[in-house]
């Protein structure tokens, strides 16, 4: 037992020494956590997409078309950058990128309304950026519904008398939408918390795997080349995990504690809930990094694969696309990589105010991953470092 405690202390010291003397690892930790954490907050700082540039092709030249243009221009989501007389000018602006949407108001727009018929205009919007498309589509529908209300008053005389009576006797009926857990509908409020959780995973796996790979390249082992028995391997592995959990626990104070406060991101979770979630997340990630790191023979090769996977992690987390709609194979990947259930759980507690009981499935997944990767990280082989 005393030997195991000595080995534990030795392994902790070795990990500290290796990290503190590796400029590459320090760059990943400091650059990744501090710079990335700040940078992503500034990148998405505007939070909402506003003033999407729209060109209007007004062939109607009527009071109605001008009213529609002014309503749309009043919306914070759209900005009418030009009103042109023919389609080719509008199409040119779309293809040049000076507008992301084009409203085509045909020359019979007002005449049809005057005859009591429905009048249709065309909204052509680029989907090159979905947020622009949504902003324009939302602004157009809002303006159109406002105008519909105004037009109904003007068109009432066209209705048969009994129906007009029925219509005028009615009070308005309406559907009222409410956004839950993100009242500003902000993109930063949605995405940045996810990115912050992924930064923890990505940088920690990088550093752990780089350290393992570096040791393999140098041929260093925990006890000067001796093969370790199972208890010793578990001790070394847990010592490494404890080192990274403490280091990243402190870094998480900045990343998941301070930054959400500084940048007004959702931060509904209390300290106890955060710690309950953070402990299995950091443990599972550090053990995953150690198991993964055994695949590499030098310090830098893990980076070739880890960074590549970071983009895919957002998709399999279930945040950007519903988990149940992912094909089964990718759902399995969600349960294998610690970042995926953790991201979901952090969003639930941070943005939605979920309790520990609410995130029990994700906690169970993270503890199962901890057990799985402890096993894989301690399997006997020459790659154990």
């Amino acid at each position, binding site marked *: 037992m005393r030997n195991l405690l000595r080995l534990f202390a030795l392994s902790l010291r070795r990990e500290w020494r290796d990290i503190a003397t590796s400029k*590459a690892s320090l760059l*990943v930790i400091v*650059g990744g956590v501090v710079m990335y954490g700040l940078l*992503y907050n500034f990148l*998405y*700082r*505007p939070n*909402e997409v*506003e003033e999407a540039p729209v060109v209007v092709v007004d062939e109607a030249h009527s009071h109605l078309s001008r009213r*529609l243009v002014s309503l749309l221009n009043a919306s914070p989501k759209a900005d009418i950058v030009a009103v042109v007389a023919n389609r080719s000018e509008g199409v040119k602006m779309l*293809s040049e*990128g000076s507008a992301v949407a084009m409203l085509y108001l045909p020359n019979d727009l007002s005449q049809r309304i005057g005859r009591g*018929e429905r*009048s249709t*205009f065309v*909204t052509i*919007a*680029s*989907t*090159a950026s979905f947020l622009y498309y949504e902003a324009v589509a939302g602004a157009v529908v809002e303006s159109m519904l406002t105008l519909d209300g105004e037009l*109904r008053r003007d*068109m009432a005389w066209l*209705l*048969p008398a*009994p*129906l007009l009576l*029925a219509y005028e*006797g009615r009070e308005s009926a309406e*559907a*009222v*939408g*409410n*956004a*839950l*857990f*993100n009242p500003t509908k902000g*993109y930063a409020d*949605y995405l940045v918390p996810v990115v912050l959780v992924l930064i923890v995973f990505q940088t920690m796996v*990088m550093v752990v795997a780089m350290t393992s790979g570096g040791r393999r390249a140098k041929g260093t082992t925990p006890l000067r080349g001796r093969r370790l028995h199972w208890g010793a391997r578990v001790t070394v592995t847990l010592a490494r995990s404890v080192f990274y959990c403490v280091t990243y626990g402190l870094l998480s104070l900045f990343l998941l504690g301070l930054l959400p406060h500084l940048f007004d991101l*959702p931060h509904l979770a209390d300290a106890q809930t955060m710690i309950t979630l953070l402990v299995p997340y950091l443990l599972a990630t550090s053990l995953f990094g150690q198991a993964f790191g055994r695949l*590499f023979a030098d310090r*830098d*090769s893990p980076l*070739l*694969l880890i*960074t*590549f996977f970071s*983009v*895919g992690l957002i998709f399999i987390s279930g945040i950007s*696309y*519903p988990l149940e*709609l992912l*094909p089964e194979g*990718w759902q399995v990947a969600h349960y294998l990589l610690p970042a995926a259930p953790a991201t979901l759980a952090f*969003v*639930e507690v941070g943005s*939605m*105010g*979920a309790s520990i009981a*609410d995130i029990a499935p994700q906690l169970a997944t993270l503890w199962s991953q901890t057990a799985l990767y402890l096993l894989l990280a301690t399997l006997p082989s020459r790659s154990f470092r």
Partner: protein
Amino acid sequence: MSGLGRVFGRELGTISRRPLLWIVTLGVPLFSALLMVTIFGSGQMRKLPIGVIDNDFSASSRALVRTINSSPTLSVVRHFTEPSEALRAVRSREVYGYVVIPHDFSRDMTSGSRVEIPYYYHYALLSVGAQVESTLRTLLTMATLKPLILTAQEMATSEQRAEEFLTPLNTSPYPLGNPQLDYHTYLSEPFFFVMLQIVVMLTVVYVVGSEVESGSAKEWLEKARGNMLVALVGKLLPYAAAFVATSLAGLCIIYLPSPPSEQGTLLWLAVATIGLVVASMALALFIFSLFPAMGFVISAVSMIGSLGATLSGVTFPLASMYSIFRYLAYALPIRHFTLISQQLLYTEGNVGAVWWNVALLAGFALLPLLTIRRLKRAICSGKYENYA
């Protein structure tokens, strides 16, 4: 044998001994194409689960639930009695939203009293929430108009006439380049190239950096008879060929199931893809040559490459970001490639509007020429061997 041939042959020997290089140059690009093609399933969000709090228990409220259920996007999977219960279900993602049918819904709709139908949607998961919101807004707005349409029918006025009166102005939306608002079209193609840029840049830093760090760079340079340009071209040619081949295969995996309508677009996309591969290699080489310490630069490049997901402008528009980031984006090949490919796909091949993006993407290839001497000096000095 020429210097170029000797370096090229030496590199083929290295690749044949390193399975990791096979995985990175061939496996990773193909895997990422398959990932992006398969991950969104059908590409459409269908039958998203939602709930209902029915406080009316009337034939009208049941009809409203049937109307919601008839939508291909939504499926009513639960009835709640309390808002707190519904909120818990939204929080646990059992449902992505819920509708509250008020007391006396049926009576008030028939009598014409004021009726308000509140609906709630999950916006911490923005893309799902937006889908639920737009579908519920359309369905419920139509439902609020239904009694008047029925009255019109009773009075022998046609339903069409009543609808024309209620919504006299209408719009026909045309989402340019993605008429089905499909997730595949939206994300698969751009993110495949984002991943490609990352892996290409990292590979270049890794293979050149390994030479510098291990001290084998002098022998590499000798093979090229001291000519740094020949040494770099000979070394990177196998990787360029492999990345071009696999990225074109990835392009086929993504587009062959539903190719662009305009003939020739796929061909130009292939040309742009080759441009992206070469530009990414050149940028990575340029950054590495500025400070040829592999441990540092590979970490830095991994972070710079990852920024491509944001700075390509596919998700959050660059015009909505702070202006410094708009300019920063132009330092990444993926931004130019994204603009070129969107132009090809959405405007029937009119690349004239993005000619300067084409020029800048091509211009990346010249970047390493600025630092080639610096890299040679670093190799000859041996200063960066085992640096980090």
